[in-house]
């Protein structure tokens, strides 16, 4: 269990949150133009790095708002937490 810093509520216990998977996965701009391979990439393929991963969380037992975080998948350390309308921070 670790503390996750909600951008609106501050640090809260992990059990208050739900995980939403990889962040910044945009819906295709022109769906009709997509090939089967492109659809497969959009629907099934997600980044799965051993290292920093931008991902979505929702503070479901608090403000119930979604936000993004960059988390190191090796250590579970949250390297950055930012709002959905903010760009992905550059992690040194």
């Amino acid at each position: 269990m670790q503390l996750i810093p909600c951008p609106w509520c501050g640090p809260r216990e992990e059990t208050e949150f739900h995980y939403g998977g990889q962040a910044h996965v945009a819906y295709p701009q022109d769906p009709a133009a997509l090939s089967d391979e492109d659809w497969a990439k959009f629907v099934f393929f997600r980044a799965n790095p051993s290292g920093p991963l931008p991902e979505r969380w929702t503070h479901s037992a608090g403000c119930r708002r979604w936000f993004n975080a960059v988390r190191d998948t090796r250590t579970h350390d949250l390297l950055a937490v930012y709002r959905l309308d903010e760009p992905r921070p550059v992690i040194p």
Partner: protein
Amino acid sequence: MNPTAPGADLPEHPDFLWDNPDPKRSYDVVVVGGGGHGLATAYYLAKVHGITNVAVLEKGWLAGGNMARNTTIIRSNYLWDESSGIYEHSLKLWEGLEEDLGYPILFSQRGVLNLAHGLQDVRDSVRRVEANKLNGIDAEWVDAAGVKEICPIVNTSPDVRYPVLGATYQPRAGIAKHDYVAWGFARAAAALGVDLIQDCEVTGIETAAGRVTAVDTTRGRIAAGKVALCAAGHSSVVAKMAGFDLPLVSHPLQALVSELLEPVHPTVVMSNAVHVYVSQAHKGELVMGAGIDSYAGYGQRGAFHIIEDQMAAALELFPVFARAHLLRTWAGIVDVTPDASPIVGLTPVENLYLNCGWGTGGFKATPGVGDCFAHTVAKGKPHPYAEPFTLDRFTTGALVDEHGAAAVAH
């Protein structure tokens, strides 16, 4: 279960079972990953196909990843024909494996109960039992009284939050001793000439004209005619070295054991709904598994609240465990596919073969996938049992949706 003292049927601790060679400059086949699947693949390559110029490369120590971290449950009661094919093939190999390897693996066919706690659970379970029967797999539906008869310590009171309404029962299912399984395969493979190379991490995969040619490792470059990936949780990382992506997310999967207890638990009990699965190891520990931690991770540890939920489920099902002490907890890293079925077969790179995506269910498949994957590597085309589990099913849409029978929440 035998009324003998706990541990009485364990063999003596083994002496050295295989050599520890330095890597040669080249091999016919390089297997990446020295866990159960990698060792089994190397063994069947040598034994069935006569390909013995083989190296198994392991970044840590042999079978120190998921093979050392699972809950050792073996069963074949999956829903779809494709899964039944490969898991039942595996179970049949388990049934003769001790003789085949000439090594004790303590395979104990004590049966598995998959509990149902709601009306839809019951319907799904009965459907799966009938599907199993059509595939020639032993399965039956038992009601709550039947559960009590098979495993008297299960709480079948109707007064709990999620009462046990019944279970699927596969009598031929069971457990094996995971370390011994790995050591048995390692010993037999080494005896056939396979080089088992530990402390050798793959850092790059070389290709030329769309063919794999070599792997770069922390112990130098090793040329390879063929490369077989058996890297489980780290498959995405390894595949990226060869230039392609996989539809996988790696998650921590936690398990734990109690202190040693007298024999109290005669079978394997799994519950998908309240989520815990329990058996009693040969030595006497209660072995319990949880669902995966929700987030992606490679850290081989998970969050404590998952264990808390798992314990709550275990105590409701088995009030007798209330005073058992927790001995230790751990996590493996499982690579989960969108349809909860594995990916076995060819890749976009010629002579590079893929075995991954077993998620939470890889241990039971060890001999079966070893045999089928060795065939795939040796012949350059999928074994019939592996054929449905292609990488391109995520493009064609021919998924094998086993979320219901995978039995671990993910």
